[in-house]
């Protein structure tokens, strides 16, 4: 990466407005950034951050507003123009090409050629990619296959791809959502170096602590409008939250003591497909919130999938309310009163094109049908009741689930399981990518369920959440349960010590 480059960028978005049918995504939003700045962009889900990103990356054209780059006004950006101006974007969604190797992924579309036939110059490409990977301190090399990379490594790959264009402005959209602590630290260091080199960095994340650490300025959006700006000395978590939600968050985590009841879910020497060498023992009691935490790849999601019957159980015993489950499958798990709010709500939790009503009713069809025919009235009544109970915000229950914000989508996934009156709910990263307000609502709901005697097994990597809401914490490490912590033992240090063994 060269320290001396073209002059630093100066970019101004002025009065940007973008309207979608039924919703104003951006209303007169302005954002300026200069070379060397690290600007944190914060806002709840649906505040307009992603739309603003799309405008910046040239994916969509604003309906109104001006874009000024380096003193020159452009009507709208296109992906080609964005690239030409040295703007690189790291998307929140990872879209690597698993069939190509790391080098090919990083330089896709910008391959180095040689000779009159334009053959790929593999050696030159690797020479270009290697130092970028070294800078990010990745575990993988230029020749590694992408299909074998973990989610965290894929995220680093996306970042390497952005760095490879030698950007003047780097936009990072939730870049740390699946990174481990040390990788996150490394990335923040890289951001600092880049900004010292005169690169402008626009950093979007829900992890406000990271913004606190690196940002020189914070721009907050709320409901598609500018909600305020924080200067260098004013950046604190509370100040950011105040701007994001427009009020103070009182007690975010309501600490409620639950009396753990009888055991409802017991694992005796259970062996999962991912880590068959480690038998697991765990006991979940009625009315408690047990959190399963650990680093990415520790086997938490795999355990959840095995318990729910998605993946085969390799051995051991799984008991629900003392009844041993034999021939485990998803329908059997649901029948036994166990359900799973999956990690990826867009592909695993929801049918995005289907209506909210259809989504909520999907697992309840046995109860909502007579001799195989769906009772449309009962279906609507269920959806209506769920909307009131969980305060799902939507213009209509006939709308497609895709049209809702992340927080409301998560509520729909919860609603579809609550309709089954489960005794055990497994929640895999239930608040990932949802805004502060919706998070608080999900926590309140979890507390209420626990108070009703439902057993909750939550998988989470968000330390604050783990410490704030759990009654007990099981820390996993490489497929084993490394330790169990009671509520009064919960600190970030004790958890991390177990997580990294």
């Amino acid at each position, binding site marked *: 990466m060269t320290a001396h480059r073209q002059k630093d960028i100066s970019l101004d978005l002025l009065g940007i*407005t973008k*309207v*979608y*049918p*039924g*919703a*104003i995504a951006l*209303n007169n939003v302005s954002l300026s950034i200069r070379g060397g700045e690290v600007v944190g962009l914060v806002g709840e889900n649906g505040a307009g951050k992603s739309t603003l990103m799309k405008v910046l990356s040239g994916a969509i054209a604003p*309906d109104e507003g001006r874009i000024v780059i380096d003193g020159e006004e452009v009507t709208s950006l296109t992906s080609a123009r964005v690239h030409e101006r040295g703007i690189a974007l790291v998307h929140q969604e990872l879209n690597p090409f698993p069939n190509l190797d790391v080098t090919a992924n990083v330089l896709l579309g910008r391959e180095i050629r040689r000779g009159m036939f334009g053959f790929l110059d593999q050696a030159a490409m690797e020479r270009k990619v290697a130092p970028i990977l070294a800078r990010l301190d990745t575990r993988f090399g230029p020749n590694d296959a992408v299909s074998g990379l973990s989610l965290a490594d894929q995220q680093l790959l996306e970042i390497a791809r952005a760095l490879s264009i030698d950007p003047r402005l780097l936009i990072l959209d939730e870049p740390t959502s699946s990174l481990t602590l040390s990788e996150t630290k490394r990335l923040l260091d890289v951001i600092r170096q880049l900004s010292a080199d005169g690169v402008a960095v626009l950093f979007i994340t829900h992890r406000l602590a990271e913004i606190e650490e690196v940002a020189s300025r914070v721009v907050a959006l709320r409901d598609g409008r500018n909600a305020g700006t924080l200067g260098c000395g004013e950046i604190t978590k509370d100040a950011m939250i105040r701007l994001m939600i427009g009020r103070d968050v009182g007690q975010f985590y309501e600490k409620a003591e639950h009396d753990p009841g009888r055991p409802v879910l017991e694992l005796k020497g259970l062996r999962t497909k991912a880590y068959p060498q480690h038998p697991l023992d765990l006991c979940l009691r009625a009315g408690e919130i047990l959190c399963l935490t650990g680093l990415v790849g520790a086997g938490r999601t795999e355990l959840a999938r095995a318990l*729910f019957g*998605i993946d085969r159980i390799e051995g051991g015993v799984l008991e629900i309310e003392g009844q041993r489950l034999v021939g485990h*499958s*998803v*329908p059997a*798990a*649901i029948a036994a009163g166990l359900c*799973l709010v*999956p990690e990826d709500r867009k*592909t*695993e*939790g*929801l*049918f*995005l*094109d*289907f209506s909210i009503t*259809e989504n909520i009713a*999907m*697992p309840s*069809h*046995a109860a909502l*049908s007579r001799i*195989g*025919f*769906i009772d449309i009235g009962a279906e609507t009544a269920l959806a209506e009741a769920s909307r009131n109970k969980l305060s799902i915000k939507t213009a209509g229950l006939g709308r497609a689930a895709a049209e809702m914000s992340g927080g409301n989508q998560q509520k729909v996934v919860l609603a*579809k399981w609550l309709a089954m009156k489960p005794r055990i709910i497994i929640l895999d990263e239930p608040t990932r990518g949802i805004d502060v307000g919706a998070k608080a609502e999900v926590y309140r709901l979890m507390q209420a369920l626990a108070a009703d005697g439902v057993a909750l097994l939550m998988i989470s990597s968000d330390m604050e959440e783990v410490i704030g809401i759990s009654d007990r914490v099981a820390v996993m490490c490489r497929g084993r349960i490394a330790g169990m912590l009671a509520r009064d033992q919960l600190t970030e240090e004790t958890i991390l010590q177990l997580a990294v063994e």
Partner: protein
Amino acid sequence: MQKKDIGLATLVMTVGAIVAVINPRFLSPINLANTANLIGLFGLFSIAEAFVIVTAGIELSIGSVIALIGVIFVDLIASFGVPWPVALAIVMVLSVAIGLLHGWLITRLRLQPFVVTLCGLLIYRGIARFYTRDGTAGFSFGSDFPMLEYLVAGRTAGVPHSVIAFLLVAVAAWFLLHRTVLGRHLFAVGKNPEAAGFSGIDTTRVIIQAYVLCAFLTGISAVFFAMYTRSVQPSSHGNFYELYGIAAAVLGGFSLRGGEGSIIGVVLGVILLQVLQNLVNLLGIPSSLNFAVMGSVILAGVIADTQFSRYRDARRQAIAMAALDSE
């Protein structure tokens, strides 16, 4: 009725009206009855195809199954003297077995539907030709089965029984796809198999059911075709019918990506294709152009559909913008 269906119905009416104006013979009872008969025959397997397409699958062996089942049905009765209800039962069991086999290969062995049914297309056609030694399976001269012929090829008040069968199947299929749990699950599995699994839907079972349903309806259709032609020439009988069924389904709003479509749509799609064929005949267009006309209309229909939805989105956008300005 969905908006798409209304658009398609309008198109059917328009084409019908144009043909009627140019050649009034279109409306003659004989022509109408013949066209209706063909709609009934082709409609049965088009609905069959739709059940598979909605799961994001495809069934390419329909034409070959129609030939094989037709040959066996005719031969059982004509050569072996099997009573026709028994022959009917045998071929229906055979059809269901074919559907089960396809469903099993696709779900348990995780083969692609295209590959499985393409192999089916080749295999069943080959078996049918081998079985008759590439000859024709037909009823010997003078033999007749009044009851069977009345039921399958007869008419009631001028309405061919194939049409009545088609209507009954269409109504049943509509309820099945749009009002039952199985129908909802077919849509769900077609749209997002992963989320379906996470919702406790047994995706394997749903997909197998779709192929069995398809094969069952194809079997019924095969019997109707065998009785319609009265002799089955296995090298040509039912050729390309699977593509015809796919065309009708796509025209009717089914997406090959799965999870979309309606029975009313596929019914209208079948009607449109038959009216077009009729148009080619009545307007004196060389019948060799038949497929070209059909292909062009389908292409035009699909283009119109995507353009119209783009136009609709743009208009919604404009309305939303105007609402904002007047704030």
